[in-house]
């Protein structure tokens, strides 16, 4: 009997099942546990209170990213500092590798893990952070969890998880030159809604995906959570192997060959059934931007803020009304006429070297508009080093942008990089919630290229329309 065709998701899932009991969630083994200062202190406390130890410090990697400043090596905020110091103590006590603020390897947890080769195809990865889905770009199953689950994984290296439903998102057609990974994922979320993939794991597939770089794939998988999905992943291929080969933690020699042989089996079999399939033709897509306060409230940049009558669902209409009020926007306004005062390029969504190259290509020889503050925050110190080696920072500084150290920065309003007062920001991060970037901040999510063009024009702008 030939085995039933399986999806990539099922293959990776089954490989990690420690115990399966009928009607119960599966107990899954976790290959890599990423931790950071903001969601872990209570987990270590819990272990101490119960007299428990970290089971596998050798499968745990810690980073300092959420609280750190990006314009100084001194953490001025006492509470942020206390979180960082607590992480240092916890890691020292448990023998966990920690890349501290100030270390050459420091950066945002979802940027550093892949960049050092710690994330590989077919692995299971968790982190006390919802954007853990990023690592799905390698064909890994990667879940964001809360602090209680962090404690559970520290103690047991496993997690009891109910098997989610599977969803295939097929990107078909020819990818236009000005459309990137960020536009694809924003277009998907606009189509299915901010909870459109609730309870599902997504596999992104199709010819358009095959042509997207690892950085772009990470951008897409990163925002799976913005579609409500538990995780999102992409089958490993030649692009994946080329990215991984030679990275510090990647296997070498005979082990590399054995790994690749295994990784090549990590594709959805012909005829494997998904619970749901969504198809998006990319041929007619153009750069996307959000107008509202959830990531599903997005339209092409060349279109207008939608009319309230275009929402047939009363709940969506009420949400749109509230969002427009918060965003201070009027239906019918052209998106590319909206003026902004702040531009943020960075975050685990778009803080990688490719993102900085895209921004530099637009900024080169141009100047940031008067009255616009632009922050460029590399996703890791390694990205920063690489950007400087390529001279990108010269372009940024010459254009009038600020070139910062690595951290979560203005993605979340937890550290010193926060919008104060009523501000409107074009941001390459992942969330445009009310108050996400500061109490009265209005956020428009965009790609790095659009963010750079916007900084120059002082209003939401596609790079193609710059003079």
């Amino acid at each position, binding site marked *: 009997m030939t085995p039933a065709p399986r999806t990539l998701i099922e293959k990776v899932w089954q490989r990690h099942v420690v115990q399966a009991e009928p009607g119960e969630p599966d107990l899954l083994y976790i290959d890599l546990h990423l931790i950071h200062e903001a969601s872990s202190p209570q987990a270590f406390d819990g272990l101490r209170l119960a007299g428990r130890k970290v089971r596998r410090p050798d499968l745990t*990697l810690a980073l300092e990213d959420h609280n750190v400043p990006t314009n100084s090596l001194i953490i001025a905020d006492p509470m942020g500092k*206390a979180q960082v110091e607590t992480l240092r103590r916890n890691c020292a006590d448990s023998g966990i590798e920690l890349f501290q603020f100030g270390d050459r390897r420091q950066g945002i947890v979802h940027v550093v893990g892949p960049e050092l080769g710690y994330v*590989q195809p077919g692995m299971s990865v968790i982190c006390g952070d919802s954007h853990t889905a990023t690592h799905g770009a390698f064909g890994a199953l990667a879940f964001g*969890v*809360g602090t*209680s689950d962090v404690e559970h994984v520290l103690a047991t290296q496993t997690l009891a998880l109910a098997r989610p439903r599977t969803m295939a998102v097929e990107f078909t057609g020819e990818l236009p030159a000005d459309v990137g990974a960020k536009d694809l994922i924003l277009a998907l979320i606009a189509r299915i809604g901010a*909870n459109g993939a609730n309870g599902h794991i997504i596999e992104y597939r199709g010819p358009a995906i095959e042509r997207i770089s690892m950085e772009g794939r990470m951008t897409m998988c990163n925002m799976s959570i913005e579609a409500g999905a538990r995780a999102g992943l992409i089958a490993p291929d030649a692009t994946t192997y080329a990215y991984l080969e030679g990275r510090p933690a990647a296997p070498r020699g005979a082990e590399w060959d054995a790994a690749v042989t295994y990784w090549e089996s990590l594709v959805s079999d012909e005829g494997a059934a998904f619970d749901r399939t969504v198809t998006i033709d990319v041929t007619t897509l153009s750069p996307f931007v959000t107008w509202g306060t959830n990531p599903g409230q997005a339209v092409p940049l060349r279109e207008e803020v939608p009319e309230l009558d275009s929402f047939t669902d009363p709940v969506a209409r009420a949400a749109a009304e509230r969002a427009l009020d918060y965003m201070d926007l009027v239906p019918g306004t052209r998106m590319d006429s909206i003026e902004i005062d702040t531009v943020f390029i960075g975050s685990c969504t778009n803080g990688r070297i490719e993102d900085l190259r895209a921004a530099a290509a637009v900024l080169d020889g141009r100047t940031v508009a008067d009255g616009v503050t632009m922050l460029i925050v590399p996703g890791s110190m390694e990205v920063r080093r690489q950007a400087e080696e390529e001279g990108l920072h010269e372009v940024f500084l010459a254009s009038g942008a600020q070139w910062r150290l690595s951290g979560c920065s203005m993605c979340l309003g937890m550290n010193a990089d926060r919008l104060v007062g009523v501000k409107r920001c074009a941001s390459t991060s992942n969330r445009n919630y009310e108050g996400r970037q500061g*109490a009265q901040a209005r956020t428009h999510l965009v790609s790095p290229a659009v963010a750079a063009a916007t900084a120059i024009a002082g209003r939401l702008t596609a790079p193609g329309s710059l003079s």
Partner: protein
Amino acid sequence: MEPLIQHTGRAIALRRGDVDTDQIIPAEFCKRLTKSGYEDTLFVTWREDPEFPLNDPRRAGASVLIGAHNFGTGSSREHAVWALRDWGFAVVVASSFGDIFRRNAFKNGLLAVELPEEVVAELADRADADPAFEITVDLDSRELRADGLRHGFEVDRRARRLLLEGLDDIAVTLGKDGLIADYERARHSWLPRLAPTDPIPSGNLRLAAN
């Protein structure tokens, strides 16, 4: 842990969809090192509006929050659950939840009850009409009861058992240590491992002067 079988309390309606965890508690208030002390930061921005339901004195002491769809979407911060619990909520009823939020809720004994949209809307109407409107959520019979209404709901089997029996999640898993060790022996040899190393200074940093 104390077993949790059911909860009865007065209800309060929050008629907003996609209530994200950044609204429930903004990131700047997630810097404490403890699991408690978050009551003052629950919906802190929305509470500035005197009309916000939680500011209604007639609703003081309500312990059942009625949301709408996609409640608790967004960040994985468990602080959102701690803040709701610290404020005094024991139950959140909604037509759908963010997956991570729901998981975090049950881990802390906050019951996240998913019911069809019409049912949630009716409960919200009843709560709005009568500040004394009470809801009972029975985890044992998986049923919500309120003034003649009765609705069954689904709940993760493991989460339910742990709460009903007052079991410690981690202790239960540690009971399977042998199975975990067996699994570990069969893992691929090439999978990455870490060991603590000394910090490597970033070197010459050119900090933004502007």
